């Protein structure tokens, strides 16, 4: 199992609070609560399968592509990496709202069946990571013909 450490900044929550109560120069008319923090459980994932293989897609907008690490072992897929964090608060800038995920992430999911790690294929486009995994030939269901005797 391969897990990347998640960065935790205890002061970030306080900064968000201060910014929200301080000068709110831009207001949101939507119903999204400014205090609903993104759960640091890693990216949202969808999983598809058939008898030959599995496709996993992960929402990873703004991914730092070089940091991406996809590992497959048996029935377990691990996706780790970090986001492009280009919003930095310094003397010239001020963050008014922060909802998007930042820093490192890692997520491990259970697959419906064992896959062949050697033939795994991963692509990234428009912020979506697609991992295609194939099932080892000997694991694929075999139809057994029932013969009349």
């Amino acid at each position: 199992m391969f897990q990347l450490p998640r960065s935790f900044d205890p002061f970030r929550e306080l900064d968000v609070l201060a910014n929200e109560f301080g000068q709110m120069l831009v207001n949101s008319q939507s119903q999204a609560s400014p205090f609903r923090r993104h759960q640091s459980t890693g990216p949202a994932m969808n999983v598809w399968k058939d008898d030959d293989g599995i496709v996993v897609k992960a929402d990873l907008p703004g991914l730092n592509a070089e940091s991406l690490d996809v590992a497959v072992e048996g029935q377990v897929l691990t996706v780790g990496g970090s986001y492009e964090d280009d919003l930095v608060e310094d003397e010239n800038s001020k963050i008014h709202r922060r909802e998007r995920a930042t820093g490192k992430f890692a997520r491990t999911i259970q697959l419906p069946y064992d896959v062949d790690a050697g033939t795994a294929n991963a692509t990234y486009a428009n912020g979506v990571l697609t991992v295609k995994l194939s099932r080892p030939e000997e694991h694929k269901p075999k139809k057994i013909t029932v013969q009349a005797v």
Partner: protein
Amino acid sequence: MTNCSTSNNNHCGTDESQQSVFQPRVDIVEVDGDLLLVADIPGADESHTEVSLEKNILTIKGTIPAIDEDGLTLVHREFRAGKFEREFTITREIDRNGIEASVKDGVLRVHLPKDPDAGQKKITVTTA
């Protein structure tokens, strides 16, 4: 898994026919008086996205294209395709002609430069 559970995209759709509209996560940062709005719209590119400013309401909207894998069975779903939309009230003077928006890697960036003439409205006094 189409129940209304917490997902990373803040939306709460029940079934496909309801055409749920989700609100993308947004960061807003001010740099030297300019505003930069950054929204997560994974799966969409610039052809799927619309940004408009009417009076002082900035709207970002669009569609995440269908993500289904043909022929395969969906066994686990945490994100979905569909419409997204979110509005913001801009409470400052913006140079409307200088607004720029771009999409890269599923991230929409809207740059709203400050109006250079803001607060400097010179009014000429004429003789009556």
